[in-house]
């Protein structure tokens, strides 16, 4: 006759405990394997979001840059200056990024309505005359495609730079403009043109000492770029990933955030399996065999941790392979992910212990997971959060400890203090698991009957 759960000695008891735990784990893993949809959804959604958001910020070009901006140029002025502006738009460096098409206003507007171009730049009639005349404010017209976000914004910035340049020229060469106007009107001879060029050259030479070397310079120190910069940098940084900085890239930034949030959902799904077992009476059946329910509950927590470890490996290692993110500190990242897995399991165990109703617990777990994820900077850079949240709430959240530390590990050049985050996560996990044990013990004091 077998003796269920009756240890003859402490070591015998421990052996039986381990055997039971192993069997319980194998059972749960087998069940999860046979019904993988809930897990798969929570694994694939973060990868899809990472891909989509990454592409939205990164465009589709092979160079990894924003991609060429296709826009319409409507020249209603039709002068030599407007010809010059039109022609320079796709020359040399401009040609790498800009793809202008010369169209009439009606056709340009039709194409922007069809979402075939990002913007329409219109050089209005009398633009040259008014510019050289200097008597009234001249304007260039930009119509942005409302269906797009990045390219029209870039066009607006570029146009701003062009206007600044034209203003600078107007201020420095104002006295020469009437002569230039006559030349553009076809009145000046070659001697007059030569004189104008010589005078313009002299003025530029005089200004050279103010321009070169520049008083203020901008240098980009790639490894020191912040995590949030990675998101702003888009896939341009992704392109550098392979060559210069393995940590840079919007995908790495997004992956850690998505992992931080969806690991909570996965923990909720795995831990609420305890409530499913109560509903399906298998928990009660276990209780008819064993007076102590601790092994069953411990088995469920172990299952949750194991699911999270496998899931974080899938998300971070698998996602890293998919999006070509080379993790700079894989061992520390693994340690952080493990401690975060324990935290997530502990948190969801507490919630499950507090809320006996399966559906209510599931709903609350989702809300808590989402709240912790959003406020902890999983979905958005913490810098984008409202001031109160960013300064008073976010630093206290375990999601932030995990996400911010993993991002810093990835994007910061110097030493990153990851140990405090790891210690905090470990201590919090231990506290939550202890609390869950007390709550579950109290809950099942009267037995495992649903």
């Amino acid at each position, binding site marked *: *006759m*077998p*003796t*269920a*759960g*009756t240890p003859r000695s402490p070591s015998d008891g421990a052996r*039986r405990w381990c*055997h*039971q735990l192993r*069997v319980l784990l194998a*059972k749960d893993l*087998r*069940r999860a394997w*046979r*019904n993988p949809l809930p897990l798969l959804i929570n694994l694939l959604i973060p990868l899809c979001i990472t891909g989509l958001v990454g592409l939205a910020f990164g465009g589709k070009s092979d160079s990894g840059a924003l991609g060429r901006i296709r826009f319409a140029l409507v020249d209603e002025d039709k002068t030599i200056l407007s010809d010059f502006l039109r022609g320079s738009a796709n020359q040399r460096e401009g040609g790498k990024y800009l793809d202008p098409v010369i169209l009439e206003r009606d056709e340009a507007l039709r194409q922007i309505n069809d979402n075939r171009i990002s913007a329409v730049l219109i050089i209005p009639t009398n633009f040259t005359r008014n510019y050289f005349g200097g008597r009234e404010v001249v304007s260039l017209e930009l119509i942005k495609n409302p269906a797009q976000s990045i390219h029209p914004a870039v066009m607006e910035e570029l146009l701003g730079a062009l206007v600044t340049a034209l203003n600078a020229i107007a201020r420095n060469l104002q006295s020469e403009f009437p002569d230039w106007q006559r030349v553009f009107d076809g009145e000046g001879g070659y001697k007059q043109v030569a004189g104008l060029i010589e005078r313009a050259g002299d003025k530029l030479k005089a200004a050279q000492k103010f321009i070169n070397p520049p008083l203020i310079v901008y240098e980009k120190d790639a490894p020191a770029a912040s995590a949030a910069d990675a998101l702003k940098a888009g896939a341009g940084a992704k392109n550098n990933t392979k060559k210069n900085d393995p940590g840079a890239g919007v995908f790495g930034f997004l992956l850690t955030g998505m992992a931080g949030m969806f690991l909570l959902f996965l923990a909720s799904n795995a831990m609420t399996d305890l409530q499913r077992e109560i509903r*399906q*009476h*298998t928990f*009660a*059946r*276990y*209780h*008819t*065999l*064993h*007076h*102590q329910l601790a092994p069953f509950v411990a088995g469920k927590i172990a299952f949750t941790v194991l699911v999270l470890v496998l899931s974080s490996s899938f998300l971070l290692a698998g996602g890293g392979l998919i999006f070509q993110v080379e993790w700079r500190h894989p061992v520390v990242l693994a340690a952080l992910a493990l401690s975060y897995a324990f935290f997530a399991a502990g948190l969801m165990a507490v919630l499950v212990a507090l809320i006996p109703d399966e559906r209510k617990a599931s709903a609350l777990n989702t809300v808590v997971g989402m709240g912790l994820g959003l406020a902890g900077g999983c979905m958005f850079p913490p810098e984008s959060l409202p001031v109160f949240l960013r300064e008073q709430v976010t630093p206290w959240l375990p999601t932030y400890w995990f996400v911010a530390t993993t991002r810093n590990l990835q994007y910061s050049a110097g030493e990153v203090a990851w140990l405090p985050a790891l210690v905090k996560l470990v201590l919090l996990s231990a506290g939550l698991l202890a609390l869950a044990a007390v709550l579950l013990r109290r809950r099942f004091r*009267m*037995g*495992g*009957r649903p």
Partner: protein
Amino acid sequence: MSLLRVQGLFKAFAAIRAVDSVSFEVRPGEIYGLLGPNGAGKTTTISMISGLLKPDAGEVIVASTPFWSDPQKAKRIMGVVPQELAIYEELTGRENLEFWGAMAGLSSGEARSRTTELLEALTLTDRAKDAVKTYSGGMKRRINLGCALLHRPKLLLLDEPTVGIDPQARLNILEFIRNLRASGTAILYTTHYLEEAELLCQRIGIIDHGRLLAEGSLKELQDRLGGDRLFVLEAELKETSPDSWDGFRQRFRVIQKTERQLVVSAIGPRDPSECLKDLLGLPVRVENVMLKRPSLNDVFLQLTGRELRE
């Protein structure tokens, strides 16, 4: 000596007395039926016996040891088949049995060989590798039963194990339970099916509103009605009462009276034909008189004033 003895078991949920001073015992090789309608307190009684609920008062003694003095020892002796299917639908029949065998303390090898035995006995060998969710209701019930038998319990608690299955599947399960009894297992069997209790149980306890109203063998319970015959009189009885009939209460015991039907048993040893004549002579317009053997339903009717099927 009894394997299970229940003494004055009491459990209340707020103001409702779910189980009220229930006492009975089950001996080795005996099937004791706890018969009662839904909500009578059968499942609560089994839950207290199996340790899922702690009784407010009373005692459960398993193999001469009070349950709560060593719950784990008592649980090793018991096998419990809950009313609801307590199995994993995603797992196969074999996996379910092996898992519950391991939980009952069997080694992997023991669990495997015992599973093979049980699959054979439950005639489920050919479907052993299929997920339980693909099984019919009867097959699921058999697996549910098998999961409680891996560790060869001496005492088996069966809580309505045939609910919701077809007659053929029910017969299979009843046959299996009979074989278990033949091997010496003590079985506590709750049901609200009269036929099952009549066919299967050596002794029957009738429970309603948490109270054990009567217990004994089928014969003993039938004898409570005054013999092995009942008379069913069909007549217009709306405007009349047996009390108004001269000496009727001295000659017959009224089991049930409705507007259309009167069920009675004769008091004392009387010839059935004499009783029939007596009934036909009543001052009512008699449409029909029948003679029948008393059933457990009649016992229940007499004890509670309503039919078990209501």
